[in-house]
Each structure stands twice: as structure tokens, then as C-alpha cells.
């Protein structure tokens, strides 16, 4: 009965569960059936008739698969959580990568050592697969535990939001455009200060840093204005994600050592005077605001597109 033993070994390989007693019981029952069938259908029990019974009964994969019924790897009702949690985790992960990218340090929880855009982009698919795998693993354990664990459902992210009225969208465009004009004027003609005396060295550093800050604010407001203009014609959350990403890239390029000096010289500022602590603090704040906004927008975009359709 070598054939029978091999068949049962093959079925064992595909059987779910790790409880050896349970698996042995199933195999014993299959063996009993195959022997019974060989005798009743083919006249006697021998290698040939058992082989025929095995063939009629089905392949080891098919036989084992029947025992999977009712025991999914991840319960169907948890499928929505799989996509939602993966989206949230990935968005947070993306934010941490961006922090590491913008500030040139390893600020991500999971190591991100690249400092250029290509390294960042090339790591994103791996990040996504990691996040998907991690969430799958957690939901797998929840399913297998058969507990009644109540998982948080972040309805905030999948709540249908009203599209802003055309008036609001025009208002946003006017707001950001006006901000861009003001920063441009302040950069060109300002800042205005009282007094006639010569500026001290500290004041020059502060002034140049302030003007550099105005330039950055101008750039970000222009990006926002373009995004708001597009939103007037075709409102989409995606444009917000793109504008936030472009804003971060702009900030990164403007403050990176490779370009900062050139930009400062182009703006007729002293390159060594555009690193006032206050400017650095404001830049940090701007980057954090952009990243947090980007993370939230990414989660909402993901949740509304993927979670709802699954």
C-alpha cells in the first residue's frame, strides 16, 4: 500500500491546522473510505484497486481543500479592515519617510537611509508590501483566534465629505493668490522697519532669513493656488496630495545644501545669512504641517477609493 501511504502523506501536507491528533483523525477517515471504496466498487483491496479509488476521490490538494471550508485565512468581515489599516499604516509610514527625506536624517521608524528622491520612491513599494503583510498577519491571528475582538473602525476617514461649493473653492483660490501677492510684495519692497541707523550683523542675518522665508512661503502659496485653480474646474482630493508633495519637494530643494546658496544668491541674499534659528524653526513647522496634511489626505483618498469598493 505504498501508493495509499504516499497519498495520505500528500494530503497531510495540504491539510490546515497544526493539531496532529485532528490531522491524524482526518487521514484515518480518508484511508478508511478509500479502502471501503476499493473493495465495494472494485471487488477487492489491492494496490491497483486502491490506486483507482484514490484517482476517483481526487487529488490531495482537492481533498485537503474541502476541509478548509468555513476556515478562511482572514475572515470576510475583516477584509475592509485589511485595506483600511494598510492604507493608514502606509500613509503614516510615508509621512515618516518624508520626514527622514526632508530633514536628511533617519527619522523613519523602519530604516530609510536614502537621501535622494529615487531612493525614497524605490522604497515605497517595499514599504507598502511590508505594511500589507503586517496588517494581514495581525488579521490572520485575529481570525484564527476566533475571538470577538472589536477592532477600531476609522469612519472619519471613509465618511463621505461634501464637495466644497464653487464659492468656497473660488474663495480658497483668492485667499492663496492674495497670500502669494502679499509675500511677493513684501519680498520685493519690504520688510519695512523704523529707524535710520545701520543694520547690525544680527539684523542682517534676520533680515535675509526673513526674506528667504518669504520666498519659500511665496513658492508654497503659488503651488497651492495652482491646486485651488484646478479644483475649481475639477475638485479632487488627489490634487491636494500632489500639491502637498510638490510643496515638500520644493521645501527640500530650497533648503538643501546643493541649491540653497544658488537660490540665495539669485535672490540677492547673503547665502551665509539665511539660516536664522527662527527660519529653521518655521521651516520645520511648515514641513510638519505639510506632511501631516499629506498623510491625512492620502488616508482619505485611499479609504474612499479602496475601502469602499472592497
Amino acid at each position, binding site marked *: 500500500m505504498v501508493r495509499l501511504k504516499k497519498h495520505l502523506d500528500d494530503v497531510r501536507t495540504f491539510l490546515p491546522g497544526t493539531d496532529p491528533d485532528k490531522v491524524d483523525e*482526518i487521514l484515518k477517515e*480518508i484511508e478508511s473510505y478509500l*479502502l471501503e471504496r476499493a473493495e465495494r466498487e472494485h471487488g477487492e483491496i489491492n494496490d491497483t484497486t486502491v490506486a483507482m479509488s484514490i484517482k476517483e476521490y481526487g487529488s490531495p490538494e482537492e481533498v485537503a481543500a*474541502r476541509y478548509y471550508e468555513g476556515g478562511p485565512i482572514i475572515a470576510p468581515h475583516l477584509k475592509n479592515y485589511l485595506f483600511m489599516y494598510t492604507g493608514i499604516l502606509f500613509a503614516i509610514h510615508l509621512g515618516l519617510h518624508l520626514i527622514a527625506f526632508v530633514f536628511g536624517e533617519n527619522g523613519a521608524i523602519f530604516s530609510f537611509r536614502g537621501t535622494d528622491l529615487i531612493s525614497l520612491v524605490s522604497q515605497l513599494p517595499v514599504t507598502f508590501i511590508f505594511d500589507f503583510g503586517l496588517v494581514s498577519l495581525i488579521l490572520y491571528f485575529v481570525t484564527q483566534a476566533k475571538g470577538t475582538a472589536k477592532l477600531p473602525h476609522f469612519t472619519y476617514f471613509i465618511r463621505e465629505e461634501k464637495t466644497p461649493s464653487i464659492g468656497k473653492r473660488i474663495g480658497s483660490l483668492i485667499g492663496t493668490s492674495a497670500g502669494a501677492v502679499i509675500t511677493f510684495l513684501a519680498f520685493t519692497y519690504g520688510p519695512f522697519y523704523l529707524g535710520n541707523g545701520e543694520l547690525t550683523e544680527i539684523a542682517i542675518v534676520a533680515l535675509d532669513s526673513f526674506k528667504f522665508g518669504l520666498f519659500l512661503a511665496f513658492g508654497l502659496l503659488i503651488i497651492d493656488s495652482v491646486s485651488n485653480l484646478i479644483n475649481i474646474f475639477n475638485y479632487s482630493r488627489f490634487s491636494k496630495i500632489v500639491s502637498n508633495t510638490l510643496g515638500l519637494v520644493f521645501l527640500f530643494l530650497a533648503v538643501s545644501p546643493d541649491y540653497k546658496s544658488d537660490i540665495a544668491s539669485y535672490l540677492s541674499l547673503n547665502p551665509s545669512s539665511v539660516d536664522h534659528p527662527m527660519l529653521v524653526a518655521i521651516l520645520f513647522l511648515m514641513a510638519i504641517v505639510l506632511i501631516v496634511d499629506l498623510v491625512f489626505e492620502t488616508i482619505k483618498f485611499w479609504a474612499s477609493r479602496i475601502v469602499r469598493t472592497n
Partner: protein
Amino acid sequence: MDIGKLATEMNRGFIQLLVMVMLDEPMYGYDIVKTLGERNFPIDENTLYPLLRRLEEREILSSEWRVEENKPRKYYFVSETGRQVRKELLRIWKEQELLLKSFAGEE
């Protein structure tokens, strides 16, 4: 239109009830397959065995191994819990039958 999938879904619950009704007296797997086949209700062994196991895990069926004609056979029979479940399921089934008949104009 192919009703195969619909029929399979409908049969799933029915087979459970059918097995519970059949197994007042102990029977082994092959015996059940044969008996149903003779009554023009062929059932795939690969469907029946896992179903028997699941019902046993839910304590609706009990089982015992017997050696007959030098062969081990696993006999299944309805447990006390299974009898109560069967009674309740039969009541539901009869209600459903009446409901269907009332809509089909047979009542």
C-alpha cells in the same frame, strides 16, 4: 441559465439537515454516500466527509470507530444536542415550506 451554483448553495444547508435526519441510526461515510446515491441524491464524498467533521466539532454528531470485516469504519450518529438542533431546524424548514407554498398558491 446555469443554476449549478445556486443549487449548490441551496443544497449546503439541506445536506446538513438531511444527514441529521439520516443519522438517527449510526452509519459510516461510504454507507451514507451509497444510501443517498440509491435514493437519486448523489453526494460527493469530498463534500460529505468535511461536513460530517464540522457537525461533529459542533457536537451535533458523535462518532465511534468500529472494526468490521478487518476494516476500520467510523460510524456517525446524532448526539443529544443534535436531536434538539434537528428538531428546531425541521420546524424552520416546515415554516419555510409553508411560506413558499402560500406564495406559490398551493396553500
